[in-house]
């Protein structure tokens, strides 16, 4: 289902303006693309949103930015909540209390804090039970809603408020948790990584994740302006740089087979192109020894996924 932007431009947004996301927020761009995917795929969605930036800024009573059924319960339980919604839907349908025959996918969405950390158990449970759900982790690599604290998705040596880059400890000294591998390990039928710059790749993957029966998983890199400490208006270009430097490999996993996305670059650009405009890496960039380690970490992750995809 290829997208012709000119044909769809101007279509009614399902996530409407008036929300309180930061000016230039990468997550808001992602949500636009999510709804383009669902509308063009002809799949309606019910959304369970974990506590976080997206949730808070879109649902200030008595208003809501969501034009699709939307539910927030708490931080760590969006997958459990959507499990209940999904089972309720099928139960009510079986009893004849829901009569429509629209195509529905039950979507839970959370940031990296909700997905990698506090909600990992709930996510694992929901994936294991095999619900007809799509779980989306919008990953901005720290707890941005509460003021840029370290999460297990925070990259090596990034400067965050709870793992600051100091004289003794250079920020976060652990590598990112590989949530994609964890999701895939549940034996789910479909999973993919996406980036908001590569919209065609992103929309195609989400369309698939919405139409494949059973639990599916999308991991999206969504730049955060205050958290990454970067210029307003750079969210999309940084998402682009993340892919072009190999920081964010784009892959798919379908029924046991990994696939290397064609949107990945033929040749990698220097990692500095991704790091330079982000002040969270300012101190790292001044430390050649640590920078070398950072590069090795990025490359080893990139090579790992290339190998899994059978790409030389």
């Amino acid at each position, binding site marked *: 289902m290829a997208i012709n932007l000119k044909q769809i431009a101007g279509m009614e947004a399902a996530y409407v303006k008036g929300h309180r996301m930061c000016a230039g927020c990468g997550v808001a761009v992602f949500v636009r693309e999510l709804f383009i995917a669902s509308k063009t795929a002809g799949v*309606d969605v*019910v959304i*369970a949103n974990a506590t976080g930036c997206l*949730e*808070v800024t*879109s*649902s*200030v*009573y*008595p208003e*809501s930015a*969501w*034009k*699709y*059924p*939307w*539910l*927030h*319960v*708490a931080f*760590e*339980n969006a*997958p*459990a*909540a*959507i*499990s*209940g*919604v*999904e*089972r*309720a*839907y*099928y*139960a*009510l349908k*079986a*009893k004849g*209390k*829901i009569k*429509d025959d*629209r195509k529905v996918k039950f979507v839970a969405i959370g940031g990296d804090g909700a997905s990698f950390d506090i909600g990992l*158990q*709930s996510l*694992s*449970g929901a994936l*294991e*039970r095999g619900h007809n759900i799509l779980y989306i982790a919008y990953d901005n690599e720290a707890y941005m809603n509460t003021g840029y604290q370290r999460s297990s998705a925070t990259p090596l040596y990034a400067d965050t408020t709870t793992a600051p880059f100091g004289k003794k400890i250079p920020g976060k000294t652990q590598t990112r948790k590989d949530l994609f591998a964890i999701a895939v390990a549940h034996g789910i039928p479909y999973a993919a990584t996406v980036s908001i710059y590569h919209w065609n790749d992103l929309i195609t993957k989400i369309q698939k994740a919405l139409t494949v029966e059973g639990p599916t998983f999308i991991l999206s890199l969504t730049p955060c302006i205050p958290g990454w400490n970067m210029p307003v208006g750079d969210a999309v270009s940084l998402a682009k740089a993340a892919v072009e430097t190999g920081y964010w490999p784009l892959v798919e996993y379908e029924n046991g087979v990994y696939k290397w996305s064609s949107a990945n670059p033929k040749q990698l650009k220097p990692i500095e192109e991704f790091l330079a405009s982000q002040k969270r890496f300012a101190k790292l960039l001044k430390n050649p020894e640590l920078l070398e380690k950072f590069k090795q970490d990025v490359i080893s992750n990139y090579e790992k996924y290339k190998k899994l995809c059978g790409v030389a």
Partner: protein
Amino acid sequence: MSDGVVSKVSVVRKALTGAQAAAEVMRQVEPDVVAAYPITPQTPIVQEFAQFVADGLVNTEMIQVESEHSALSAVVGAAMSGARAMTATSSQGLALMWEVVAIASSMRLPIVMNIVNRAISAPLNIHCDHSDAMAIRDLGWIMLFSENPQEVYHNNIVAFRIGEHPDVFLPVAVNQDGFITSHCVEAVDVFEDSFVKNFVGEYKAPYNILDFDNPISAGEWAMPSHYFEFRVDMKKAMDRSVGVIEKVFEEFYKETGVKMDFFEAYKTEDAEIVFVVMNSTAGTIRYVVDKLREKGKKVGVIKVRVYRPFVVEKFLELIPSAKFIAVMDRALSIGTTGSPLYQDITSGLFANKRIVLVNDYIYGLGGRDFTDDDAYEMYEHAEYSLKEGISGQIVYVGLNPNLLGR
């Protein structure tokens, strides 16, 4: 306790545990969704019900979640989708789901949850006390307590009607004592399925996120400009539940001959010493009250059936002659003057300008058995306190003297 009114409903007497009695109502009501996680001593409820599902006896989607937090979260999701949804838990499980317990009532979802009361850690203990339930008493759940498997059965049936009433829309917790009730086989008069189905009726959800044509957003963020009103609004719903409970009990009585009340008084009209008790120990106290009455003692007992809402005015009407109240708490509030039930009663007495001597008798923590002998001992202490004008004492019943320090 049927007294005169003949049940219009056909009844089969079954030998059931409290856990089975809860599962029996679940079978008869056939909730749309049940999500649960095993925890002692609640487990037999969900095991029994899982068998009903496996055998095709009920049309229910059962979600075997990976924790109690997820159990209630899934139930909240289901209830918000317009489904009738249930779960059950105990102790640490209830503690783990506490966050969602508060959310369920604040989102005004009439979920019915069975709580099999058990002590909380540490030390780890699987036996009965009421510490788990008391930790959720101010969160906006209607809380019913059950003396025996029969009351578990009745409480579960009325729970739906109360919680799902448009004036209320609050979740209901049906409590029973861990092991003492949950694992005790007793005679339970079970109504015919059709009666229970009709009495409980179809569930009409007040709001439903599965309405794609009129989408709503549920679980919003409220600024200081609105949050206060939401809390008071929930309190108003709890207040309105009093009238609803009265009506539901009345209707239940008319249909079945089974009488239920907020507070169930036994020989209190002329009683000078009144025990107040919850759950399974109530029967033991009634037995002892009978024995003491044989000796000419003016003593009675009030069993708290509806703990939230706690309608203290109804309580006060039942103790016209009381000079001394022996409150029995199966939980210990640490850092204040008395434990939960004691606090509810004493604040009510004071606010209503009713001056009566009151002691708080703490018993049965962590499953410490409470026997008829313990009850006699407690009565002796109460009688002595009344004679000496003693009040406001916290008294422990059944503490092991060998373990007391100097």
